[in-house]
């Protein structure tokens, strides 16, 4: 017998509970809305925020004078001509307020003895601008602090283990969501006056990635199917020095970055020689080469046969005195020792790893998509970071966009009045029973990840991208029209089906945009079109669904104001 439908009603539904989702829930509640904060996993512990061990860029000026316009100039320069200047300005201008708000909530930003908040210098920044919580605790501290505030908000209802499968649209407006409870498989329909998607990025599409396993582009797929546009989908950021070997457990693979800046970790090829400057970079004593360029340098070296045994580069701190290592790494050095790593005597191997996605859902300054009632926050938003994100901007963006999206959604829900349930054909998929799967769907997801890593990774060609599109189409045929089995408790086979359905759509969007962009820019590098072509390609590509198929479009870039251009120059 089919499980009865569980119906919920709220003013604002927030999907995803990383920093962006929690910030949105808080601001919507403060604006008077009743909020349902839903996550497919545990509330406040899934997504990328808890994985962000590092730094948050913001013009506080606590180390030396700074202004958000300087931060904006660096953001726009890193974005390689594709930042939406309005969105980038919002991040840089409103960032300091969010950092101070978290400080007031006792997040624990690292401080000098005189009380000033410490700010570290990170690549691409013209001055020390990145705040942090010591010893790789930044993301977890931010998540824990926000979660503590959410718990105090009487009007926020939290629901974990709730998978959102679709957003019903009636009269052109998003009316809520349908999905199912992971714990028992019960179908769920949520009526909402407004929906905020804060599901993070899509790095799960890649075999080696630094994000959570639940970041497979859920929000991108939900937005597309609801009628919204995606933008800049071809720009996937690879983090240049993701840990590769020896195998580390219990550590974030992107952990090396802050230590590299702080201590001057040397990036070496198989010949033991520093090589980053061989690729047109001018890196001196301070490591300041941006992520796209460092990724390009490492992978070029590997292609030239000078990579490390595991297929990356060596990162060495062997020249740093042991006392300094101990001081900088703190307790982390003991965790490394448990993994058999002694930095005084050995280099580790690092390689680019899928880390962040600059593209996402196209929104206006209120974080609203072209579909009324549908808002987006955090990494799921397109535009603020252009073709390459500046180090430290992700948490800033999550906090700033989250707050805006929550406020906007609360206003929209108030105007919409009491939410009414809306039907969705997807409920039939959620409630229906089918024969067991013939295909191993977990294996199919791994196959997609391998395909994306090989053909739609940091280096791309028309031939490889065509192969990827063919592989995606084959996987879609194998996926079939209905999820396998019947609703039940924690059925990963069924979840894999829904996940692969979304991942294939989003992978096709990334690949289609990458094939169309016949130039190299930022994180999008085409071996067959190696140069940046501003005359033809200084524009955004958009994607939307038309009669069930992806359709490419173009949109102009919102240019920076004159003052910002002067800063960049």
């Amino acid at each position: 017998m089919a499980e009865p439908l569980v119906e919920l009603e709220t003013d604002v539904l927030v999907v995803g509970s990383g920093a962006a989702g929690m910030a949105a829930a808080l601001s919507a509640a403060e604006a008077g809305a009743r909020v349902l904060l839903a996550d497919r996993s545990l509330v406040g512990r899934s997504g990328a925020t808890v994985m962000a061990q590092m730094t948050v860029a913001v013009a506080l000026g606590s180390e030396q004078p700074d202004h958000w316009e300087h931060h904006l100039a660096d953001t726009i320069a890193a974005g390689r001509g594709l930042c939406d200047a309005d969105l980038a300005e919002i991040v840089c201008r409103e960032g300091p307020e969010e950092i101070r708000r978290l400080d007031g909530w006792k997040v624990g930003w690292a401080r000098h003895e005189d009380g000033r908040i410490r700010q570290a210098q990170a690549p691409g920044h013209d001055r020390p601008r990145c705040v942090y919580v010591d010893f790789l605790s930044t993301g977890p501290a931010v998540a824990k602090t926000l979660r503590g505030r959410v718990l105090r908000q009487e009007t926020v209802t939290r629901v974990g283990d709730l998978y959102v499968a679709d957003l019903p649209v009636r009269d052109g407006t998003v009316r809520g969501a349908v999905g199912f409870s992971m714990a028992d498989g019960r179908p769920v329909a949520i009526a909402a006056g407004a929906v905020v998607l804060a599901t993070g990025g899509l790095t799960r599409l890649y075999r080696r990635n630094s994000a959570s396993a639940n970041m497979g582009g859920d929000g991108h797929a939900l937005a597309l199917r609801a009628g919204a546009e995606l933008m800049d989908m071809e720009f996937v950021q690879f983090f240049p020095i993701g840990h590769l070997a020896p195998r580390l457990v219990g550590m974030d693979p992107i952990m090396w970055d802050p230590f590299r800046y702080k201590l001057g970790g040397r990036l070496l090829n198989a010949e033991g020689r520093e090589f980053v400057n061989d690729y047109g970079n001018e890196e001196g004593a301070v490591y300041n080469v941006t992520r796209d360029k460092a990724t390009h340098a490492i992978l070029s070296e590997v292609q030239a046969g000078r990579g490390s045994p595991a297929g990356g580069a060596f990162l060495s701190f062997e020249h740093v005195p042991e006392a300094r290592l101990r001081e900088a790494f703190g307790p982390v050095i003991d965790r490394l020792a448990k993994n058999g790593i002694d930095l005084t005597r050995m280099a580790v191997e690092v390689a680019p790893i899928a880390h962040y996605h600059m593209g996402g859902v196209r929104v206006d300054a209120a974080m609203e998509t072209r579909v009324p009632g549908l808002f987006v926050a955090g990494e799921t938003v397109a535009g603020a970071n252009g073709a390459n994100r500046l180090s430290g901007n992700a948490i800033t963006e999550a906090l700033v966009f989250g707050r805006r999206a929550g406020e906007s959604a609360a206003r929209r829900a108030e105007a919409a009045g009491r939410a009414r349930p809306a039907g969705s054909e997807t409920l039939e998929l959620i409630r229906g029973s089918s024969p067991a799967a013939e295909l191993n769907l977990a294996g199919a997801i791994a196959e997609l990840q391998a395909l994306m890593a090989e053909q739609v990774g940091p280096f791309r060609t028309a031939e490889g991208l065509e192969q990827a599109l063919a592989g995606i189409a084959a996987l879609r045929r194998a996926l079939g029209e209905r999820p396998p089995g019947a609703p039940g408790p924690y059925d990963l086979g069924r979840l894999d089906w829904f996940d692969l359905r979304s991942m294939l759509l989003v992978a096709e969007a990334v690949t289609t945009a990458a094939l169309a962009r016949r130039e190299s820019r930022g994180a999008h590098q085409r071996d067959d079109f190696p140069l940046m072509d501003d005359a033809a390609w200084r524009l955004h590509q958009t994607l939307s669904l038309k009669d069930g198929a992806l359709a490419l479009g173009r949109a102009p870039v919102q240019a920076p104001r004159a003052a910002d251009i002067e800063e960049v120059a």
Partner: protein
Amino acid sequence: MTAPAETPTARLVVHRTGREEASRYEVPYTPGQSVLDGLRYVRANLDPSLAIRHSCINANTCKECMIRIDGTVGYACTARLEPREMELRPLPNKTGLRDLVTEIGPPDERLDHAVARSGGGGRED
């Protein structure tokens, strides 16, 4: 599909909530791997029906992958896979949902709690 005989293997004996008999899997062993790596290998290559839970992959930040490993409670993402027989069971003091997955969400973050707060879940006209 099992790994070639000459490769060292980890032999995982998984006691699954909802099933009488334990499932046995042979996983190719590489030094440094975690138990979670082994379980993910099982799902992608041997038995996709096996239910496990994890959000982060091996950073030990989501804290979702806690199970019993050879009788001791620990995180699958930090426990090392070893080239021998290893016995895996769900947490003893939590409600079992399926296989190695237990109900670990706080009671006030479960669906029934939200339904109660939402006014019983009925349609309102």
